[in-house]
């Protein structure tokens, strides 16, 4: 049997790969210098390591290392990209922003903040499969659309947006295009030499690197400008001040190097596991997969179990570590806004589980999960008055519920 709890929450965060930890430790011990120190070898050694890691990150996404700026994570990258570009270009271009209802809060919240500062934002509704209709995106573009932000891979449902098509529309419209790729590195090919993308956010801890480090790609040709959001010593060519955490940067570099080397093989293995999980869970009645199955990373499976309630479901499956909705929102009892944007009912949104599979998931883990879900769903449905009504043929959506 697998060791419980089984970790199936790789989209919330990944464990640090041992090779990454090993690469980091020397920079916590003997090479502890501040990379901004220009007067001694401690500083130079740290600086060399930082620049080497920058090359490694650039290599995974095929850009120039000078186009990579370090941040404290994808949240900061998104904030810097969105607020930085919108503010810089507002005067010349306008104050309209386009994004999508299913973006991560780290995109939605900065856009909301800009709205408070007088920008106007369009939050596009995706199709029921989670993908953006390109025609609708095109129709939303205006002459004063200064910025568009669309994520590459969705954190809850794993769907992959057509970044190239969206980027081309932005280019034609003179709109800066930002892409949150926090969930994409090591899962889908990213070629920034070809992609019409101006700004792209990355995070290390979704790709077996440490937490607290991320990067923002800022295109140099044509040059994209930003208003800095963090002021100070002028690190990172002025884009982002603050002492660079050398060990974390080294960790991100190594993690991205491993991702580049191993993603093809790893993704094939993960896809087999995901397909097995899907086949197993599909044997349960009244389950619904959320999000498009084809245009999706192999790591993600998001399923709603009808007629059981979300929290009790999570309690029932506490031997597996999964998310109901994204980690950042699971402290509140709101149903996932991503699933609601796909048109899922509150009930189905509440009763969804995101399984995310990763580097250390085994076949046994998947078998165990399938068996556990089958038993627990049956037990909860035995307890569920809604399941009883469904079996009696009552259409629950037609019942008038007393509000309380």
């Amino acid at each position: 049997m697998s060791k419980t709890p089984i970790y199936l929450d790789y989209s919330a965060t990944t464990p640090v790969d041992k090779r990454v930890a090993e690469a980091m430790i020397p920079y916590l011990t003997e090479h502890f210098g501040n990379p901004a120190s220009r007067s001694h070898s401690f500083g130079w050694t740290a600086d060399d390591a930082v620049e080497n890691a920058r090359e490694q990150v650039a290599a995974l996404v095929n850009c120039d290392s000078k186009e990579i700026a370090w941040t404290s994570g994808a949240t900061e990258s998104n904030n810097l990209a969105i607020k930085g570009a919108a503010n810089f270009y507002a005067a010349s271009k306008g104050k309209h922003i386009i994004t999508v209802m299913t973006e991560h809060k780290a995109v939605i919240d900065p856009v909301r903040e800009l709205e408070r500062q007088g920008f106007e934002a369009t939050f596009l509704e995706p199709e029921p499969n989670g993908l953006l209709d390109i025609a609708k995106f095109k129709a939303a573009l205006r002459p004063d659309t200064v910025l568009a932000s669309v994520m590459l891979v969705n954190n809850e449902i794993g769907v992959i947006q057509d970044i190239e098509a969206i980027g081309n529309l932005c280019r034609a419209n003179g709109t800066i295009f930002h892409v949150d790729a926090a969930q994409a590195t090591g899962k889908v090919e990213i070629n920034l030499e070809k992609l019409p993308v101006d700004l792209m956010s990355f995070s290390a801890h979704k790709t077996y690197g440490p937490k607290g480090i991320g990067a923002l790609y800022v295109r140099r040709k044509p040059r994209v400008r930003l208003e800095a959001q963090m002021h100070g010593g002028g690190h990172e060519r002025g884009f982002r001040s603050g002492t660079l955490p050398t060990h974390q940067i080294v960790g991100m570099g190594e993690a991205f190097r491993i991702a580049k080397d191993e993603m093809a093989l790893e993704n094939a293995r993960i896809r087999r596991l995901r397909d097995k999980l899907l086949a197993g869970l599909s044997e349960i009645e009244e389950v619904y997969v959320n999000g498009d199955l084809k245009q999706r990373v192999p790591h993600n499976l998001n399923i709603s179990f009808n007629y059981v309630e979300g929290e009790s479901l999570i309690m029932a499956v506490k031997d597996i570590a999964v998310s109901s909705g994204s980690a950042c929102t699971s402290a509140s009892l709101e149903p996932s806004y991503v699933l609601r944007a796909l048109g899922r009912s509150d009930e189905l949104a509440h009763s969804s589980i995101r399984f995310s599979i990763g580097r250390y998931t085994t076949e046994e883990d998947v078998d165990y999960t399938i068996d556990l879900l089958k038993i627990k769903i049956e037990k909860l449905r035995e307890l569920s008055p809604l399941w009883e009504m469904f079996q009696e043929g009552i259409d629950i959506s037609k019942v008038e519920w007393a509000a309380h």
Partner: protein
Amino acid sequence: MAYSDKVLDHYENPRNVGVLDKNDDHVGTGMVGAPACGDVMKLQIRVNDDGVIEDAKFKTYGCGSAIASSSLVTEWLKGKNLDQAMTIKNSDIAEELALPPVKIHCSVLAEDAIKAAIADLKQKQAIEV
């Protein structure tokens, strides 16, 4: 979210799960809550000719605290007459299960379910005579 041992116990081993015949004159059925709010409780009681609750059953769609609240009240209801049953307060339930503030609404729902079941029973019996 940390649940109390009592909530966990009721959740793992819910008491009196099931159904009573809702067409039986001696059975009152209360259904409260709404799926969209995340909780639906169905509570049924059966009284004997002396008006004492002989049996209680429930089914609940909801979080662990909602399941525990309804499971607990089925235990408390048995052996009580309707007037006694009406005195069960949500605060008693919340206290017994050590519910955190965000889960107090579960105990309120359980109290509402008792009232609804009794109202249903009284209505049936009133029509009867």
